[in-house]
């Protein structure tokens, strides 16, 4: 087990990158603590798989260094880094039994037969495949195969980290939950460093203790699911997390007031007028809709999603979503009020801290 440090890491597929756009991964400094359960969340193409492959050694970064603990592993090949990786679709050795699959990494390192057997039994019990050790890997279901992939990763006791690249992609929806729960249990029990790449926020938020959000080759925020939800550091985080995502409006901000489409909104901190494109953001959960309020709305429609309702409306030409509790009536002329402590200010997509009121 090790703490993984990325030092001034960047990656470009071009031979001589100049502009920011040439880099698939923009320069970053990031630390993954030993034993942490991390989710690496982002939209397709944002560079998360590239980052994962740099950590595992399948890709050599064009700039920067990767450290495991204190050791610089940037030049070390995958085989020497002692990590495990579970891929998007199950990778099992079809011709071997489940037992032989799990034993494979150990046998490659020359471990004794008795030791191998003991360890395989142990891991098989962990992943719930103990009853199927003698079966050929080929005929099993997708989730069983992914468990074997996972088991193959965990079978080495000194594995530094387990990396997951969207591992539930081919799993049936009903099994996804079961597998996620099992992963979480395994992490609690054994404490491996786990990095879980996904574009699904539910998977990320339920699995991880800390979520790393990536956008356009950059890490935009690292934090607990709570942090990401309540204080998104970047408009992308606000938009990507939550269902529906954060509402964003262009606004003029001065002191503790923001003006949106001619209407004033109260903020809970003082801001000097930010430079660049200024927006305020507020989650639908923190928009109160009533007959009286700060901002007039034009209702587009109301969606009933069971436990609550989503009000789709427009404010000053921009879309606004609000969560209405079940049963609450929609006023004829609805007006919205934003919770001041949950209204955040963004300048050029990055959050701005306010001063004392």
């Amino acid at each position, binding site marked *: 087990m090790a703490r993984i440090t990325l030092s001034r890491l960047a990656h470009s597929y071009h031979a001589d990158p100049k502009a920011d756009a040439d880099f698939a991964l923009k320069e970053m400094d990031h630390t993954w603590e030993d034993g942490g359960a991390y989710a690496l969340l982002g939209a397709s193409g944002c560079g998360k798989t590239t980052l994962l492959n740099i950590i595992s050694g399948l890709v050599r970064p064009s700039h920067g260094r990767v450290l495991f603990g204190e050791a610089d592993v940037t030049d*070390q*090949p*995958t*085989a*020497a880094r*002692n990590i495990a990786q579970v891929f998007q679709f199950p990778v099992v050795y079809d011709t071997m039994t489940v037992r032989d699959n799990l034993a494979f990494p150990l046998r490659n*390192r*020359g*471990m004794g037969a008795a030791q191998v057997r003991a360890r395989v039994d142990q891991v098989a019990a962990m992943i719930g495949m103990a009853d199927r050790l003698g079966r050929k890997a080929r005929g099993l279901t997708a989730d069983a195969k992914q468990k074997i992939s996972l088991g193959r990763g965990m079978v*080495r*006791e*000194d594995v530094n980290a387990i990396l997951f690249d969207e591992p539930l992609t081919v799993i049936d929806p009903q099994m996804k939950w079961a597998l996620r729960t099992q992963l979480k249990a395994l992490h609690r029990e054994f404490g491996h460093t786990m990095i879980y790449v996904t574009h699904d926020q539910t998977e990320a938020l339920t699995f991880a203790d800390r979520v790393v959000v990536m956008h356009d080759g950059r890490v935009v925020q690292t934090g607990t699911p709570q942090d990401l939800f309540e204080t998104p550091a970047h408009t992308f985080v606000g938009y990507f997390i939550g269902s529906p995502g954060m509402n964003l409006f262009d606004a003029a901000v001065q002191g503790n007031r923001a003006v949106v489409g001619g209407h004033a909104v109260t903020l809970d901190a003082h801001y000097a007028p930010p430079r660049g494109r200024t927006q305020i953001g507020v989650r639908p959960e923190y928009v109160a809709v009533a007959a009286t309020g700060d901002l007039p709305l034009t209702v587009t429609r109301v969606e009933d999603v069971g436990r609550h309702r989503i009000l789709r409306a427009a404010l000053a030409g921009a879309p606004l979503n609000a969560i209405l509790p079940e049963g609450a009536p929609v006023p004829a002329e609805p007006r919205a009020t934003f919770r001041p402590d949950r209204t955040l200010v963004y300048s050029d997509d990055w959050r701005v801290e306010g001063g004392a009121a």
Partner: protein
Amino acid sequence: MTDAAAPARALPAARAAARAERFPWGRVAVMTLYLLFLLVPIYWLVTMSLKTNREITSTFTLFPRDLTFDNYRTILTDPSWYMGYVNSILYVTMNVAISLAVALPAAYAFSRYRFMGDKHLFFWLLSNRMAPPAVFALPFFQLYSSVGLFDTHIAVALAHTLFNVPLAVWILEGFMRGVPKEIDETAYVDGYGFPRFFVTIFMPLIASGIGVAAFFTFMFSWVELLLSRTLTSVNAKPIAATMTRTVSASGMDWGVLAAAGVLTIIPGALVIWFVRNYIAKGFALGRV
């Protein structure tokens, strides 16, 4: 609880592997040896075609001492030689056209429909590919003579369909299976008749499959000798047969023979060059 010994053991091997990935010396050596093995006999044929008969039979030289194009000149000016090429190209082209023309609808039927006896028909078709040409030499001779087609290009073209039609159907069916049936159904709904649908919509979709099938049928017809020699004598005589009569009063005309050989390789080389992007894809045949 780190297993310190194991990583240390893995490390040197892994590092060596990583180094090997930088420049693949092993692979380059293997490929160079193999390609040399393939090219040396051909090189020998080419140099021989550029030598005079005297030089060939009297001394042994790695490179022609008296470089000459006379052998090629003989072939290109003597009708009894160059007509051989013309004949070969003629019947091969006819064969490719016929084979594809009957294979396309048949492959479509096999890929889209289940009909009475379809599995048996398919296997029986494939079994024709396993027919030794030697078995058919004499029967073909008698058959085509009896219908007055002996020594014609069409006879050879038809004879070669024995092994080319099964192959073409096999290849085309594999590619057609990759096109979803929904496309056919949409076309019919849109009012296309079957012939128009097949030609304007379907064939462009399997264009690479047609290319692969054309390549293989060309290849197997171009290289075949036994049947093409048995069924021809003068008018449709392929170059292969002409080559076997190069013995003259002064002995074997090696130079001309070699030049004739080189010229038979050229059409094949050209075809490979044009379909080089499809070669690997084609061998996959959509079936593996």
